[in-house]
Structures are given as structure tokens and as C-alpha cells.
């Protein structure tokens, strides 16, 4: 047996073990337990949210609609009442997410790498209907360094508190929610975890020069957000970056035509006649982020920067199209001199859900990444399979054609160095319990 086929057998064995283990796992995570609802209430293939899941998230993890009514013939439950009076969730709202990824990268010395794994603790829920909270803690994470370009390692690859925030629902009786703590600012339409692929979305993970900023990073922030009517959602916040004095600011606006609205209501559907809006929904969002970074160790200049982005998410029955674009400008991304760096990243992704009998999604993503130091064109086909609702298996291929900027020519075209091509194969398994 060749070395390669031995590797393949090893990978399949790992997958088999994961599946065997997951098959026995009866438990499901925090929200599912609290609400006695299966994953598919809020997810297509977890952790991708469906429209109802987004409404639940926007509603501070409180079930959309009126307060839950008790069934007419149910007996009073003393424990339930005590927990309600105390404001404590009835169950300890904790769950875990484990990920195992294997990468085949011929450009690396260690071509077949099985060493990427992570265990994340997640907690979330609501205190009565007053406030929602969410915590993700990277209990353990290990993987090749980001620079190896395998793209398997999450950008927050360190054992650390990734998110910890509370959201005061309808503060002072207004429709506005106040969110405070460490969280991903509401910029793009999707949280970074809201994806099927192993690879992050380039718009969310790209960085410029030595700047630590990425659109999808969690920040220490204060945010006001809320729905304006059932189909518009707005957010604005300030960020206090660690060891920085200046505050950064952002704003976000999105709206949805068709589909489940932000309050969790289904669209009007006439059961006697067909309309394209029975199944079609389009969500469009835009955002801006303005900030300033300094790093005295690297240089004397401040990097004033902004990012401006637009996203669109189109859903029709089993089809989904996502588009995400962001334009950025940094005026001293290396802190050593004023040199303006313009960046532009665009992502398009098409998904198709095959559905029963196999809960499988096939997707193709194209990414154009000009981070001001070079251009990368990424082609990412991926197959994502959920044998049961809390298990996700991913088979992914990343083809990345990268070339470096040499600077601008007289005609203002961008001159590029001859490029390198990276081809990476990935297998990932993740399960929540």
C-alpha cells in the first residue's frame, strides 16, 4: 500500500470513529435543550443558520413571538416557577463543539496533517425575556500556524475567550437592544461561524499589512441594535481595542424581502395559488467600520483605516447564493511610513441542498482577495454532509492562485510577480453536544 493510500485509510478510520461516537451521542446543545427543539429549527446544516435561527439570534436568544403559554391541562411546576422568579435558565445552558480537521497540502513538508483539532465551549440563553447572553470559549485548539495557508486553523486559534456578551432586550422599553462585551460586531450578514466550509469567508478573515484588524474578529464593544419594522435591522457600535486609546466605530443596515421576517413570522403564502415569493427571499446588508491602530514597537505612525462592505443572501427552495464584498483603505498598515493600502475582497458562493435521503449540501465558492500586498484567487468546492443533525462532515478542496504586488506601473495597472499555486484538500468533522 502506498504512503498516500495509507493516509487515506487513516483519514477514513478517524471519520468512522467520529461517526460511531456521534451516533451514540443523544445529547444536543444548549439552545436545543432549553427550547426542546431540534437543531433543524434554526439550522440547515449546523452551524449555518436558517431564517428562523437568525430571528432567534436577533431577538436576544428569546423565542420569537409572545411569551410561551402553558398548555391548558398542564400541572403547575414548582421548580419551573422558582427558576423563572430567579431569572435562571431551567437547564445549565452549556454545550460543546468539537472539530477535527485533516489537511493534505503538497507544498508542506508534513503533507498530510491530522493535527488540527479544537474543543469549544458554548453557552447561551436568556434571563427571562429581559436579556440574552452568549459565550464561546476555545477550551482547546491546535493546528498548523495560520501562515501555512492551509486555511484549516481558525483565525482565533488560541485557547481564549472568544465571545462573552449580554444583550439587554428592548432597553428602557424601547425597541433598541444594548449589547456589551466581547463579540463579533454586526458588520456582515453572517457571523463567522455561520458557514458550511472549513475555510473562513475571505471578506471576514483578510488582514492588511501588520494591522490586527479583520472584519470577522470578535472585539470588545458596545452596540445598539434593533429591528425597524419586521424587515429592517440596524446596528451601530463602538469598539475599544486592547491597548488603544482611540475608539473605533461601525454601523450596519440590512433588510429582507420575502422569507421569514426578523420577528420570526412566516411570509404570507396562498395555499391555492403559486407565487415566486412563496419560497424566494433576498437579504441585503451594508456596513462601514472606521478605526485607528498603533503599534509603537513596529513604527511611529498610526494606521487610520476603514472597511466598507456589502452582502447579499438569496434563498430559493434548496438553492442559496451568497455574495460578500468589502473595500478597505489603510494609510499606514505597517506603521513605519505613510503608504496608503487599498484592499478589495469579493466572495461569491452557490449552495444546493440535496436533502433526503442524504442531508447533503454541495457548494462552490470563488474568492478574489486583494489585500494590498498581493492578489489571491481562490476556488473552493465543498461537500457538506450531516448524517444526523449535530454532526457535520466536510470534504473540501481549496485551489488558491496567489501573486504578489510589485507596486503600481505608470499606467496605474498593478504589476504582479509570477504567482504561486496552492492546492489543499481538507476533511473535517465537527459535532456538537
Amino acid at each position: 500500500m502506498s504512503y498516500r493510500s495509507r493516509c487515506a485509510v487513516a483519514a477514513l478510520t478517524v471519520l468512522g470513529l467520529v461517526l460511531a461516537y456521534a451516533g451514540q451521542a443523544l445529547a444536543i446543545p444548549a439552545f436545543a435543550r432549553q427550547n426542546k427543539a431540534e437543531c433543524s429549527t434554526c439550522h440547515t446544516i449546523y452551524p449555518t443558520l436558517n431564517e428562523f435561527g437568525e430571528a432567534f439570534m436577533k431577538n436576544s436568544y428569546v423565542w420569537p413571538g409572545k411569551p410561551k403559554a402553558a398548555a391548558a391541562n398542564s400541572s403547575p411546576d414548582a421548580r419551573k416557577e422558582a427558576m423563572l422568579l430567579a431569572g435562571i435558565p431551567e437547564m445549565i445552558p452549556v454545550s460543546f463543539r468539537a472539530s477535527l480537521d485533516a489537511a493534505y497540502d503538497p507544498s508542506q513538508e508534513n503533507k498530510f496533517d491530522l493535527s488540527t483539532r479544537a474543543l469549544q465551549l458554548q453557552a447561551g440563553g436568556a434571563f427571562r425575556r429581559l436579556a440574552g447572553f452568549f459565550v464561546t470559549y476555545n477550551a482547546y485548539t491546535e493546528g498548523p500556524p495560520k501562515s501555512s495557508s492551509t486555511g484549516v486553523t481558525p483565525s482565533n486559534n488560541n485557547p481564549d475567550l472568544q465571545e462573552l456578551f449580554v444583550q439587554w432586550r428592548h432597553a428602557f422599553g424601547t425597541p433598541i437592544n444594548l449589547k456589551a462585551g466581547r463579540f463579533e460586531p454586526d458588520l456582515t450578514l453572517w457571523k463567522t461561524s455561520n458557514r458550511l466550509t472549513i475555510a473562513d469567508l475571505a471578506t471576514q478573515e483578510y488582514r492588511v499589512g501588520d494591522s490586527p484588524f479583520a472584519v470577522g474578529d470578535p472585539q470588545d464593544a458596545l452596540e445598539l441594535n434593533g429591528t425597524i419594522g419586521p424587515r429592517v435591522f440596524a446596528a451601530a457600535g463602538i469598539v475599544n481595542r486592547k491597548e488603544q486609546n482611540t475608539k473605533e466605530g461601525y454601523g450596519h443596515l440590512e433588510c429582507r424581502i420575502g422569507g421569514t421576517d426578523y420577528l420570526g413570522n412566516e411570509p404570507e403564502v396562498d395555499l391555492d395559488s403559486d407565487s415566486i415569493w412563496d419560497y424566494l427571499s433576498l437579504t441585503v446588508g451594508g456596513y462601514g467600520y472606521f478605526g485607528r491602530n498603533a503599534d509603537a514597537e513596529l513604527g511611529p505612525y498610526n494606521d487610520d483605516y476603514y472597511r466598507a462592505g456589502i452582502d447579499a443572501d438569496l434563498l430559493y427552495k434548496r438553492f442559496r447564493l451568497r455574495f460578500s464584498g468589502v473595500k478597505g483603505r489603510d494609510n499606514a498598515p505597517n506603521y513605519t511610513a505613510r503608504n496608503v493600502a487599498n484592499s478589495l475582497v469579493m466572495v461569491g458562493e452557490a449552495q444546493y441542498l440535496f436533502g433526503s435521503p442524504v442531508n447533503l449540501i454541495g457548494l462552490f465558492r470563488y474568492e478574489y482577495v486583494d489585500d494590498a500586498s498581493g492578489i489571491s484567487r481562490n476556488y473552493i468546492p465543498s461537500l457538506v454532509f450531516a448524517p444526523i443533525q449535530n454532526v457535520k462532515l466536510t470534504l473540501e478542496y481549496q485551489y488558491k492562485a496567489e501573486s504578489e504586488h510589485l507596486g503600481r506601473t505608470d499606467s496605474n495597472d498593478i504589476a504582479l510577480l509570477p504567482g504561486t499555486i496552492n492546492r489543499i484538500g481538507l476533511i473535517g468533522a465537527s459535532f456538537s453536544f
Partner: protein
Amino acid sequence: MKTLITALLLVGICATTSFAGIRTLGRGATLTFDPAGIPPAYKKNFEIMRVRCVKCHTLERAVVAIQTGVAPISGQPFDRGATRAYGIKMLRKPDSNMSKQEVKSVVELMNYLLDQAAR
């Protein structure tokens, strides 16, 4: 006094039976409407429900919702005004494999059963 208590008890028993004015079979995951309690006019509708509405979960949800008047997960009222919306919610799930006609039949059946349950 004794007669009063007996009378009250009798009223109580009658109240529970009439509250559960629909006949069911089984418990938990096997809970279903008793086909013998479905009138011929709704037999076809019930057949659709029995086949289509068990793809993703058991019939327990529909039975409990109709018996109690409260949707078991969302805790929202499950009355004549809500059946259609729940039917549409199930229809629009991407892998539901149901047609509008089928959902319409199930909604009609649920409305009939709600009326029966309320008797």
C-alpha cells in the same frame, strides 16, 4: 355532602373526557390520532398527514398541539387561526417534500380536530 362530591367528581371526569374530545392511540413517539375516530370525509386528509407529517418528527407534536391548544415547542396558541401558519412553516422547510394541496388538506383536518377537541 357525599352526593355533592360524587356529582362534582362526575362533572370533573366528564370535563376531561370532553376536553380530550378526539381519540388517540399510543404514547410519546407513537402517539397518533385514532383512525377509527376520523370520519370518512377526512380519511384522505388523515392519510396525507400520516405519511407527510412524520418525515421529520412524529405525529406527537400535532396531537399535543390539538389536544392542548398550545404549540408544544413555541408555546404559541394553536387554534384555527394558527393551523395555516404552522402548515406553511412546515411546507416552506427546504426538504419538506410537501405540496400546497397536501398542506391544505392537513390544515383542514387540523381545524376539524380542533373543533372536536373543543367540544
